[in-house]
């Protein structure tokens, strides 16, 4: 990423007066600078008068994720905001935002009813009002806060730890067995999701969380705990083998590209999935086709 796009002001000073790095303010070198400098869109009401204000965690193309408190001040909650997109026609913008946020909320509510481990839906407003002007400012959705790391972070920690630790074959196998157990749990969680008639649409190791359990062994990297599925922004209700197979295929590819060391262990994902519900074998059969042709169906003919 080029510097001038992110911090335009400091860059101007840098080029115009040709300062050396030594006299540049030190904050420019801080990696946190971008986060501090970035101004997210104003929060929709009522969160513009929340004290303390919600803290921004991540941002995607469609939504911002904040941490705040739930309606019980002692319990935290996740707040997902879909800000309005000023380049879209206002009527279309509202309609798309409303359709997408209610779709996500319906999926969450359905999965909670079916007992799949997902964050509970706490509150929702599909026509949120913007900060100062009081007009349309986007929609928001409040969810249960899930403690713990996403699986991507847990696997990265594990891979880094495996690199450092010099283990003999037997120990390596014991460690890999732990990852295999995690993969099976992930497969089972996805099976439960598909059984409930929902497909996720964007399964990656960043959209699976590990809710930690109390462990007495602090020596090892935590891979235990319940797998919780998050981010249903692209989810839809479907019971078709094709959609289910694509879900699994996308996750397989995500594991292969982000966790090369764990790639060989991903077959346990399928093992965990196969036994999770009645329709699983036929979805897995379709997965073999999808693997050969990719995520998109052929557009020929």
């Amino acid at each position: 990423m080029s510097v001038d796009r992110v911090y335009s002001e400091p860059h101007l000073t840098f080029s115009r007066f040709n300062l050396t790095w030594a006299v540049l303010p030190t904050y420019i070198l801080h990696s946190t600078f971008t986060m501090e400098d970035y101004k997210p869109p104003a929060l929709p009401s009522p969160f513009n008068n929340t004290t303390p204000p919600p803290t921004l965690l991540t941002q995607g193309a469609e939504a911002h994720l904040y941490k705040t408190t739930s309606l019980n001040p002692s319990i935290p909650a996740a707040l997902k905001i879909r800000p309005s997109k000023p380049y879209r026609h206002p009527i279309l913008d509202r309609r798309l935002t409303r359709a997408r946020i209610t779709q996500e909320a319906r999926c969450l509510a359905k999965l909670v009813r079916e007992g799949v481990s997902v964050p509970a839906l706490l509150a929702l407003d599909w026509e949120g009002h913007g900060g100062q002007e009081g007009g349309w400012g986007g929609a928001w959705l409040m969810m249960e806060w899930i403690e713990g790391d996403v699986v991507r972070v847990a696997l990265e920690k594990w891979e880094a730890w495996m690199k450092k630790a010099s283990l003999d074959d037997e120990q390596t196998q014991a460690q890999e067995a732990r990852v295999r157990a995690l993969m099976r749990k992930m497969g089972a969680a996805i099976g439960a999701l598909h059984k409930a008639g929902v497909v996720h649409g964007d399964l990656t190791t960043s959209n699976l969380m590990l809710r930690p359990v109390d462990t007495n062994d602090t020596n090892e990297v935590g891979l235990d705990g319940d797998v919780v599925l998050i981010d249903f922004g692209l989810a839809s209700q479907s019971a078709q083998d094709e959609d289910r197979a694509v879900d699994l295929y996308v996750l397989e590819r995500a594991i292969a590209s982000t966790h090369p060391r764990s790639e060989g262990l991903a077959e346990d994902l399928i093992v965990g999935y196969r036994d999770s519900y009645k329709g699983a074998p036929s979805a897995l059969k379709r997965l073999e086709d999808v693997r050969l042709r990719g995520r998109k169906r052929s557009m020929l003919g």
Partner: protein
Amino acid sequence: MASSLETINLPHLPPLPIHVAVYRDVQNAAFLKSQLLAGQPEYEYAFIDASMVLSRAHVIAAVFRALNDYSHSRLRSHNVHSEIVFSLNPTNNIAESFRRFGITDSTKDLLVIKVSTSPEITHETVATHLGSAVEGTSTSFDDQTLFELSDITKIKKSYKLGSLASPSKAADQIASKENVEIKQRLENALLGAIALRGS
């Protein structure tokens, strides 16, 4: 009579404190309902049948939804208090929501909510008026009491959640891990239904 009116400032919302009281063995439910139907301004409360309420979080989710709609001038019913009762309902039928969740002539246990929509409405004024208006035993607004008073079967029927397990009220099971989880799952399903109404 010592009143146990609780005043709550909900997070996120503009300064709109709410006053909540729970009464058991209410004797004059029919009178309260007639006053409400006559539109007496001093009887403008959200009177909720406590048997239809599972927990604090359940009521507060409905209150939050009503107050959020109120502060954006999107009320579907007459006032913010009727909107609270309406918000408890999972469907869009206002009359049905009053029948199901509101006070009826046979209501025994009553949950009363008043929103401080104007500065004249304070903890003291609400406590004084409720103390003289409601003939019942005041008790505290907590999860244990609400769960005790709740009619799980009726709640599940209203929200069409028949497939979910019912938490047990038996003294030896009430605190067990499984029972707490069953109750939590039912509560989460209720919150989802309240949030999604009308979507």
